[in-house]
Structure formats: structure tokens, C-alpha cells
């Protein structure tokens, strides 16, 4: 009685691809690399077919080659460490100064009245424009790059620290004040931890800005660093190397950002919310 439907059932049905469980749960694990492969493939094809000049857009294979050469010869590492050192020093100065100034302005009215208007004025200025002047003041060595990195990272730190200190929960302060806690205790037990989410927003902006500052400083005048290397490669029309250096800079930036995020997760274990602002 099933002789009509039986043959139909025997037809070789196209077997659905059996995806592994991890891929079905998180398809982005396959999709994200796939996008990269497709884009790189198209890019390579466009350049290989001669649709775009090698000088304008080098092929991914050439960039890969330049990156491998730069890393294996130690050139990128040597100059990368110079830039990293400048950026890290600038970051450290900016974070310290931003935290101290932000706290002082938030806590001491006199400081706020005396300094804040000028800070607002300076903040509205594009700090990058100071780079040539800073090179004149601090010389062609690394200190001028540290200065540029510190200045442009300082303001996000200052503004977020200030915002954080002002966002202190008054109820929690009341609890401490009713116990007779002094200003220092109020700061350590309530204001500082309460300001941490804001401060971490500042840190994740500053960690990106300090690299920008170091590179810009090197553009203006330097004898070492990845920014100097970019200018050199550009002048020699070694465009694959320029791309390779950009990739190296990107990797350093991602590492710095990841470091801040890791620290954030560790210190802000109590905060389930997402970050207040992302760069």
C-alpha cells in the first residue's frame, strides 16, 4: 500500500551539512575569519589583475612579506619598542596627572575656580597642533614624543576622573558621614571606587591616544620609532612596508586596549553594566 510513496522516499535527498555544535552555537567563530579571507582574496585578485597600481595598494602577499621581513630582521621590534616606550611613558604621566588633577578639581573648590577655566580652554584646542612646538622644546629625542603622548592622553583622563568624582553616590557618602568619616575616608571608601567605571573609560581612551601622540611626535621629527619608520618608508615609496608598520601599530594598540579591559574586569567585578563610553 505504500508503493506510491516508497520510491519517492528512496530519492537521494541532498544531505544538510552537519555543522559541529560549537559552530552552531557561535557562528561568528567561522564567519569573522571567513570575511577576512574573502576580503583578502578579492584584494589580492584586484591587485594581481592590475586593476589597481601596486604603488597605491600593495597586494596582501607583499604586505605579508614586508611584515615578515620587518619582524624577522628585528627592525620593527627595535623601532616598535622605542614607540611603545614613549607611548607608555606618556600614558603613565597622563594617567597620574589626570587622576591627581581630576581629584583636586573635584574636591577642592579653590583649585576648580583657579584652574578649570584654563583647562577647558586648552581642551578645546587640537592638542596635536602642539607637536611641532613640543619637538622644539624637548628636542628630537624621545622626550618630545612622551610629551605629545602625555598631553593628548591627559585630557580624557582628567575629564573622566572629574566626571567620576562628581558622580559619587550621595547616599553612600551620607552613610560614611553619619559615621563621622573624614574627607580621606570618604574618598577611599566611596568616591574613588565609585569613580572607577568613569576612570576606566578614560583609561581605554588614553591607551589609544598615547600611541597616536607618540606616532605624531615621531612624524614631526625623530630618528627612531615606528612613526619615523613610516615616514621613511613612505618617502621611499615602500608602500608594503607602510602597511606592515600599520599592522604592527594596530597589534600594539589592541594589546594595550586588551590590557586595560582585563584590568577593568578584574577591578570592576561588581559592575555588570557595559562600559560607559568606548573610544
Amino acid at each position, binding site marked *: 500500500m505504500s508503493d506510491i510513496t516508497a520510491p519517492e522516499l528512496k530519492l537521494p535527498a541532498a544531505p544538510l551539512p552537519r555543522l559541529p555544535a560549537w559552530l552552531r552555537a557561535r557562528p561568528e567563530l567561522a564567519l569573522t575569519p571567513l570575511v577576512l579571507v574573502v576580503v583578502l582574496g578579492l584584494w589580492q585578485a584586484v591587485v594581481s589583475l592590475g586593476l589597481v597600481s601596486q604603488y597605491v595598494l600593495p597586494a596582501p602577499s607583499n604586505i605579508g612579506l614586508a611584515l615578515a621581513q620587518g619582524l624577522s630582521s628585528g627592525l620593527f621590534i627595535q623601532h616598535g619598542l622605542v614607540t611603545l616606550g614613549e607611548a607608555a611613558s606618556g600614558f603613565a604621566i597622563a594617567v597620574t596627572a589626570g587622576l591627581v588633577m581630576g581629584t583636586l578639581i573635584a574636591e577642592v573648590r579653590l583649585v576648580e575656580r583657579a584652574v578649570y577655566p584654563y583647562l577647558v580652554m586648552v581642551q578645546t584646542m587640537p592638542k596635536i597642533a602642539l607637536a611641532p612646538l613640543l619637538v622644539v622644546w624637548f628636542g628630537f629625542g624621545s622626550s618630545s614624543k612622551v610629551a605629545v603622548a602625555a598631553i593628548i592622553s591627559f585630557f580624557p583622563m582628567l575629564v573622566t576622573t572629574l566626571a567620576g568624582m562628581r558622580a559619587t553616590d550621595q547616599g553612600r557618602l*551620607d*552613610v560614611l558621614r*553619619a559615621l*563621622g568619616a573624614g574627607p580621606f575616608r570618604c574618598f577611599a571608601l566611596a568616591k574613588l571606587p565609585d569613580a572607577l567605571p568613569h576612570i576606566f573609560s578614560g583609561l581605554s581612551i588614553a591607551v589609544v591616544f598615547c600611541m597616536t601622540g607618540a606616532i605624531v611626535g615621531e612624524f614631526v621629527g625623530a630618528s627612531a620609532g615606528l612613526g619615523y619608520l613610516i615616514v621613511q618608508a613612505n618617502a621611499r615609496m615602500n608602500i608594503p612596508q607602510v602597511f606592515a608598520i600599520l599592522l604592527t601599530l594596530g597589534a600594539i594598540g589592541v594589546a594595550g586596549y586588551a590590557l586595560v579591559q582585563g584590568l577593568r574586569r578584574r577591578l570592576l567585578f*561588581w559592575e555588570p553594566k557595559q562600559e560607559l563610553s568606548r573610544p
Partner: protein
Amino acid sequence: MTAPDGQVAQPAGLSRPRDATPLISVRELTKVYPTAKGERVQALSRISLDIAQGEFVSLVGPSGCGKTTVLRILAGLIADYTGDVSVSGKALHGPSREVGVVFQDANLMPWRTALANVLLPAEVLGLNRKQAKLRAQELLTMVGLEGFERKLPGELSGGMRQRVAIARALIHDPAVLLLDEPFGALDAMTRDTMNVELAAIAARSKKTVFLITHSIAEAVFLSDRVLVMSSRPGRIVEVIPVELPRPRGLDIIADPGFAATVLRIRRLLDSVTASALPSIAH
């Protein structure tokens, strides 16, 4: 719950015949706030009240009548007032160790565990760490939070957070517990449960309690006396003794005495609100 205050004679009015010195004494308390326009708003006008050792007293009144100002003065958070305020016979100048405060919001530090939050006053006041920890543990058990010591406030419900705040207010063993609408932010059912527990905690810890609320039923349920305030300027218009037996359960709501007291306060509040109207319009 064994109520030690059951033996205390129900006071009627300001005069407390048998107690030599009341635990909290407020005389002619007046508070004026300056406004942005340079005017002066009288928040409190010549408030006098006495609270005896072990007594549970509530302060009810319309919103904005200055209830919270009274509590903040007693908590030492407002210093510029005129009049005399003393706790345990000592004039109050700023925050006192004799006082524990529970605010409308639990105001817990979200980065501290329940236990660490309870221990906060011990840290600020520099109490012995070991003893404080034992006591914090006991208090958390007393407020029904045994096993939640390591939880962060974010992992607790609103009612549980307020219980932690009560335990925190008691850690340094203050003579007085000040409560500023502690359950105002909770839903009605949780609020009823919390009130029953608060009555038990007050009885067990033998604390003197001063409660600010705008729930008349809550005030009558918990208190030995209810002070009724009017607004603009805030003043105490009447002191109503609550003549109900202790311990009280939620079924006391059915007691005719309970209903009569609530009604009496309700009428009183309605009359002061109505009489205040012309002056507001003016």
C-alpha cells in the same frame, strides 16, 4: 519575640514621668534653609521631643514637612540648626557613635560583599576586627541573611539589601537606630514582612528606634508613640500613644484599637494639610 518594652508604661505626650533623662532630647529645634533666590524657608519650627530608652517612636507627616531634616539633624548630617539636641545626655555636635542610621535606599557599597558592607562602620570607627566580624555574622543571621555573607549587593533583592543596611546600622552597637522610610522603595508585600521583622529586631536588640515614615499604618504597627507633623513650617502638632499589646503580628490590623488609632492620625493629618492650604496659596 519577647518585647522588653512591653513593660514600659505607654507615654502620652512629651512628659515622661519616670525616666530621668530621655535617650534623645530635642528642644526648640528650628531649621531655616536659604533658597537660591536669597529667601529663607523655614523647614522646622520649634520642634521638641523626647524619646526614652528602648522606646519605638515614629514621625509621620506629609511629604516635604521636614521629617527627613529632623532625622538628618539627629544623624549629625546637618549642623546648622538652632535649638538643643542631645543623645544619651550629651549635646549632639555632628555624627555620634550612639546613632545608627538606615536610609531610604540601602546605600550599600556595590563592590563590597554583604559581610564587608556590615563591617564598614567598624572599619571607619576603628573597632576590633575579629569581634566586629563575629558580630557582623550574628547580625546577618538576625536579619535572616545567614549564608548570604559573600554575596554582592547586586546579587541581593531590594528587601535583602535593606536588611544588610539594618545590620550595618547596628554593627557598632549604637543606642539609637534612626530609620528614614527604610522600606519606602519596597513593594507592599515585602514591606509588610520587613515591618514584622523590624519589630522583632527592635525588640531583640533592645534598641531605641526613631522611624520616619509617611505610612500611618506602618507607624502605628511598629510604634509606642507616633508624632504627627505638619508642613510649612514643619512642627509637631500632636503625639499619639499607641495602646496596643506586644508582640504585634500582622493580624493586629483587624484590631479595632489599631483601626481607631490609624483613623485618628489620618484625620489629624487631613486637618493640618487642609489648614496649611491657605498659607500655601498665599
